C-alpha cells in the first residue's frame, strides 16, 4: 500500500522554527525578522509559484543544515478537489465538510495526527490553485482578511526600520530604550502574522500539536467528522453520524476540542463521550432555553466530568450511566448557579 505523501516529521518541525523567534535567540533577531519578511512578501504576492518556490527554498536550507536527506515521505497525494474562497477555507461550510471527510476518511490514524501530512495537503492545494497563499494569514471569516493582515505586518516592518535608523543618532539612552520598545512591538506584529500562516499550514512550531485538531481549518472539520464517525460505530450508543454531527455542532466542537485534545482529555474515552452525547441529545430535544443553558455550561460540565473520573472509572461505565452522571453534574451546577444569583425583584 502506498504511503500518503507528507513532509518529513523532523523537517516540518524545523521548518517552523526556522521562521520563528525562539528562546533566547536575541542575537539573531535581525536575521530572523529578515527571514519572516521575505516569507510574508512571498505570501503577499498571492502567486502560488512564488510562494511555493520560497517554501521549497526554506525546505532545502533546513534539510542541508540538519542533514535531512528526504524532505518528503510517501507517494500518494491527497487534496480537496475544490477551488475555495478565503472564507470557505477559514470556516468550512457543510458541503465542504462532507468533501473534506470523503477525501480523508480512510487515512490511518498516524497520518491524521501528522502535521507534515496536512502541511503537504495545503501545499498541494496552493499548487493546484484551489486556494491562494494569502488565505493562510486570515484571522476572521471575511474574504480579503488574510491579504490585509500581511499588508499590515509589512507596514510594521517599514515602521520598525525607520525607528532603527533613529536609534543612537544623538538621542539619549532613555529615548533609545523607548525606540527599542516600539521596534519590538512592530517585530511582534510581524511574528504574529507568520505564526498565523504556519498554523494554517498545520505547522506545530507555534503552538504544538493541538493545532491539528482545533486551529488548522481542514483539521477542525476533519476531526469533528472523525469523532462522529467513530462514535456512530458504537452500536449500543444507537446514534448515527449525522445525529452526532447535529449534537456535536461546530460551536460545541470548539469547546470539546479545547478539552479533548489536551491533557484534560477524559472525554475522548468512548464510554464517557458517548454518555455526553446522549445527555446533549436529550437536552437538544427539549426546550430551547435548556439547550442554550447546557451549551453555556458545556465547558464546566466537561471539567466536572474530569473531576469525577479521578475516582470513578467512567471509561468503564456504560453510556447510559455516564449520561445519568452528567445529568447530575448539570443539575448540580444549575442549583449552585441559582443559589449564587441575586434574587430578581
Amino acid at each position, binding site marked *: 500500500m502506498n504511503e500518503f505523501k507528507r513532509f518529513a516529521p523532523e523537517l516540518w518541525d524545523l521548518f517552523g522554527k526556522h521562521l520563528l523567534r525562539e*528562546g533566547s535567540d536575541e542575537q539573531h533577531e535581525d536575521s530572523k525578522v529578515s527571514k519572516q519578511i521575505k516569507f510574508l512578501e512571498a505570501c503577499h504576492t498571492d502567486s502560488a509559484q512564488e510562494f511555493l518556490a520560497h517554501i521549497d527554498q526554506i525546505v532545502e536550507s533546513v534539510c542541508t543544515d540538519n542533514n535531512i536527506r528526504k524532505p518528503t515521505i510517501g507517494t500518494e497525494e491527497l487534496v480537496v478537489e475544490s477551488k475555495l474562497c478565503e472564507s470557505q477555507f477559514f470556516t468550512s461550510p457543510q458541503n465542504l465538510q462532507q468533501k473534506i471527510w470523503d477525501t480523508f476518511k480512510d487515512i490511518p490514524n498516524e497520518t491524521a495526527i501528522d502535521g507534515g501530512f496536512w502541511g503537504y495537503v495545503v501545499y498541494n492545494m496552493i499548487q493546484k490553485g484551489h486556494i491562494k497563499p494569502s488565505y493562510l494569514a486570515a484571522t476572521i471569516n471575511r474574504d480579503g482578511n488574510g491579504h490585509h493582515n500581511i499588508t499590515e505586518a509589512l507596514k510594521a516592518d517599514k515602521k520598525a526600520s525607520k525607528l532603527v535608523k533613529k536609534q543612537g543618532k544623538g538621542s539619549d539612552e532613555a529615548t533609545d530604550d523607548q525606540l527599542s520598545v516600539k521596534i519590538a512591538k512592530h517585530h*511582534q506584529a510581524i511574528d504574529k502574522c507568520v505564526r498565523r500562516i504556519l498554523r494554517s499550514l498545520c505547522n506545530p512550531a507555534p*503552538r504544538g500539536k493541538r493545532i491539528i*485538531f482545533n486551529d488548522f481549518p481542514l483539521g477542525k472539520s476533519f476531526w469533528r467528522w472523525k469523532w462522529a464517525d467513530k462514535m456512530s460505530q458504537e452500536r449500543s450508543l444507537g446514534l448515527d453520524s449525522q445525529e452526532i454531527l447535529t449534537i456535536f455542532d461546530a460551536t460545541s466542537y470548539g469547546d470539546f476540542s479545547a478539552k479533548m485534545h489536551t*491533557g484534560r482529555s477524559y472525554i475522548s474515552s468512548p*464510554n464517557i463521550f458517548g454518555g455526553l452525547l446522549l445527555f446533549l441529545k436529550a437536552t437538544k430535544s427539549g426546550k430551547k432555553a435548556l439547550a442554550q443553558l447546557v451549551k453555556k455550561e458545556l465547558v464546566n460540565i466537561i471539567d466536572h466530568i474530569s*473531576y469525577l473520573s479521578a475516582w470513578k472509572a467512567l471509561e*468503564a461505565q456504560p453510556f447510559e450511566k455516564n449520561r445519568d452522571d452528567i445529568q447530575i453534574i448539570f443539575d448540580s451546577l444549575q442549583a449552585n448557579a441559582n443559589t449564587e444569583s441575586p434574587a430578581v425583584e
Partner: protein
Amino acid sequence: MPDYLALDFPVLREDTADFKGGIAYTVTATRQDETLMVTHTLTGQSYISRLIKDGKAKFSAQLFYKKSSERKHRFADSHSTNGLEITATQAIPLDFSYPPDVTGNIVILSQEKITNDAESGLDDFWADVKKFTIPEFARIAYHAKLSFSSDALQQLIKLVCKETLAPGKMQTLVNETADEGTCPVKLVCSQDVYDELKQATPEIQNNPKTDRHATRLAILTQALCATYAHMQNIKLPDEQINGSLLKHLEMLSEDWRGENFNPSLAATEIQPYILSKLQKESSDE
C-alpha cells in the same frame, strides 16, 4: 503522588496510610513490538484482594495516547494467585505506532457493602468504621502513571547569571504571558550554578553518565517543579499563554489544570532524579 480526594471508602495508593504494611499494588508496562504488556500485582490480604478473587473487582489499564489525546481502557480478563500475591497480565495491541502513557488501577464492578474485619487489611485510621459502601465503578487502588516519552527544554528556559547572588542560589521566574518567541521561564542563578547549568545538554537525558550530569539535571527538575506549581495557579485561557510554555505543558501526562495535579511528580516524570548516579563514585567528565 497527587492529592487524593476525600472519599468515604479506603483506597490503596502509594502515599496513603489507609492500609497495613505489606499490602501494595504495583504495575509495570513494557513494549514488545506492536503489543503493550501490562502486569498488575496486588500483594497482601485486604478487602481488595477478596473482591478480586470473588470476581467483584478487576485490574484495569487506562491508556493515554499523547499525540492524539485519545484515551482507551482495558480490563484484565483474568488473574492468577500465588499465596498472598495476585497478578494479572494484559497483552494490549497498540492503537498507534508509539506507546501510550499507562495508568493501572483496580475497579469495583458493582456497589458493595464491605465489613471492616481482621482481613480487610485496613489500618487504625478506619478502626471506627465497621462497614462502608463502595459505589459501582469506583477505583479502589491506583498506581502512578507510567510514561514512555520525554521532550526538550530549550524553548522553555533561559539561564541568567546574577553575580550578586551568593553561591548555590537559583530563582525560577515564570512569565506565562511572555511574548511569543521569548523564553517564558528564567532561571536566575549564582555564578557557580550558572556555570554548571550552561554545560547541561538541552535535551533531557534519563541516563546521565556522571554524577555531575545527574546533579545538573536534578537542578532542572527543581526549576520545572517551580514552573508547574506557578502554572497550576494561573487561570488564563490558553490563547493568552506563551506558546512554548503551553506546548511544554501539553506533553505532561497529568492535566496541569487538574484538581489532582502534583507539580513535583510531573517534574520528575519529565526529568527524573537519577539517584544512583549521585550516590555512586564516578569520574568527572
